[in-house]
């Protein structure tokens, strides 16, 4: 195992984060604050409490998940796509580094960035609402699993994409709608019965629901089911990666 290589890949990826530290911190702080102004205060004041939780508080887990999902995918996919695009991938391919070591370096860095991002969002949110986390351990568990699975998913997209359009299309056309329609900003009990059924096919619902449960002990689906779905998604991503590795998919000519 080339631990040194994993370390330098990881640190190299993290370096970009530190280099643009101001932007990395300021943009989630600003967007979280905007969400609270718009949804928490302006609109939220007209919305009833949901299962005894004020709307401003209710959206915190969904808002965090929204950012974590999109950022995990975009960080990990850009991370591996960019060297392919600029040609610097030659160095990774000609170094004594295995596919899995590369994967751990990139996905590890992308997950770390997402965790930092989630922390920033939760801290900012706590300035607007009084945030009590019922099950901090579960909260962290859901968060870490989500960061890792969606960074893996992003890595897959980055490997698969051979142009910028492909890189953007899945997050734009699939992930963003799924997140918005997955109960990030509402409880599915607010939907008509038919749409409630349809929403059950949206995997993001299970993530958000489980994550929200760890804060307020309220959920749309059972927390065990949520955990199962996260683990299932993680396994699917790992299986795809293993298949890509075994077939040398798209990395080598």
């Amino acid at each position, binding site marked *: 195992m080339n*631990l*040194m290589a994993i370390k*330098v890949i990881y640190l190299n990826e993290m370096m970009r984060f530190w*280099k643009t530290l101001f932007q990395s911190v300021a943009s989630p702080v600003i967007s979280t604050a905007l969400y609270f102004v718009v949804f928490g205060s302006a609109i939220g004041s007209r919305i009833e409490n949901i299962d005894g939780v004020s709307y401003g508080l209710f959206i915190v887990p969904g808002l965090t998940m929204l950012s974590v999902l999109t950022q995990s995918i975009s960080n990990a996919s850009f991370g591996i796509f960019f060297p392919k695009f600029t*040609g610097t991938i*030659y160095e990774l391919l*000609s170094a004594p580094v*295995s596919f899995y070591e590369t994967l751990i370096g990139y996905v590890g860095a992308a997950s770390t960035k997402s965790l930092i991002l989630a922390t920033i969002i939760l801290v900012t949110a706590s300035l607007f609402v009084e945030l009590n986390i019922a099950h901090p351990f579960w909260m962290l568990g859901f968060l870490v699993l989500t960061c890792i699975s969606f960074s893996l998913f992003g890595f897959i997209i980055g490997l698969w994409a051979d142009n910028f359009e492909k890189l953007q299309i899945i997050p734009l056309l699939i992930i963003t709608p799924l997140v918005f329609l997955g109960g990030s900003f509402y409880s599915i009990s607010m939907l008509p019965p038919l749409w409630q059924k349809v929403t059950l096919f949206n995997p993001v619902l299970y993530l958000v629901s489980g994550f929200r449960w760890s804060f307020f002990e309220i959920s749309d689906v059972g927390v065990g089911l949520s955990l199962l779905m996260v683990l299932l998604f993680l396994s699917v991503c790992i299986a795809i990666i293993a298949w890509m590795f075994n077939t040398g998919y798209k990395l080598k*000519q």
Partner: protein
Amino acid sequence: MDSIISIKDLSKIYNTGFEALKNVNLEINKGEIIALLGPNGAGKTTLISTICGIVSPSSGTVTVGGFDIISDFRKTREMIGLVPQELTLGAFDTVWSTIRFSRGLFGSKRDDAYLEQLLKDLSLYDKKDSEIRALSGGMKRRVLIAKALSHNPKVLFLDEPTAGVDVELRKDMWKIVNKLRSQGVTIILTTHYIEEAEEIADRVGVINNGELLLVEQKEHLMESLGKKQLVIDLKESVKKIPPSLDKYNIELTDDGMQISYTYVVKDEEVEISDVLNEISNSGLLLKDLKIVQSSLEDIFVDLVKEK
């Protein structure tokens, strides 16, 4: 001599169906400098990329230091440094961070003293903290060399190291190559220029259309294939070549302003000084003269004709 790289029946067919390497066999000796000559699209980069692990071979085997490049890829790649043909570098990295990254990728322990010396040898030390995008093309090429040498490789591949490089850097480059050679590093370089191969290499391999046409000690190659042409511009046009020069293979251009004498370097009966004497005695008024060496393309034409 000990062989360090052994290529057996290597072929590469790209996904497009294009056959870029056709059954290549080559032994590269420890410590030698071998130049791969060939026109655009010959398969030089493909050959190098396959040995380094960037391109998967379609068939055949390659061993480096006795290890297979696929089953023992860690051992073979640790021995190899690669300077790619294209200037591929992260624009926003600094010189220092990028060479430390390279060294780490190869699993070598941090050694700042070695890397600093390397930068000094490549006249890059004062650019240590510059971002890559702020460097000139020639400096970027040096950075690529520094990256390739960052883990003390035993084998160095230089893919067209002198493309777009000025005379100064070219000299520096040969200095570095000679220093590495004296340390026992094996060097494989590709080039389009026969003079370059002549200047630096011990052996020369000629590739065309994915085939390794021949590999020879460079002296042999030049002797057997190098043709030269003596071209003389005249001050006044002449109608025909003076009879005293008839015995030589001398041609006159249509406008009568230029004569040229073609000879094969290895031919021992050819005496260039005799020819020059005869020309000056013939009463022709000379304006200028130059010697043109047969180009690689000419050599290919000859080689392919022979086959």
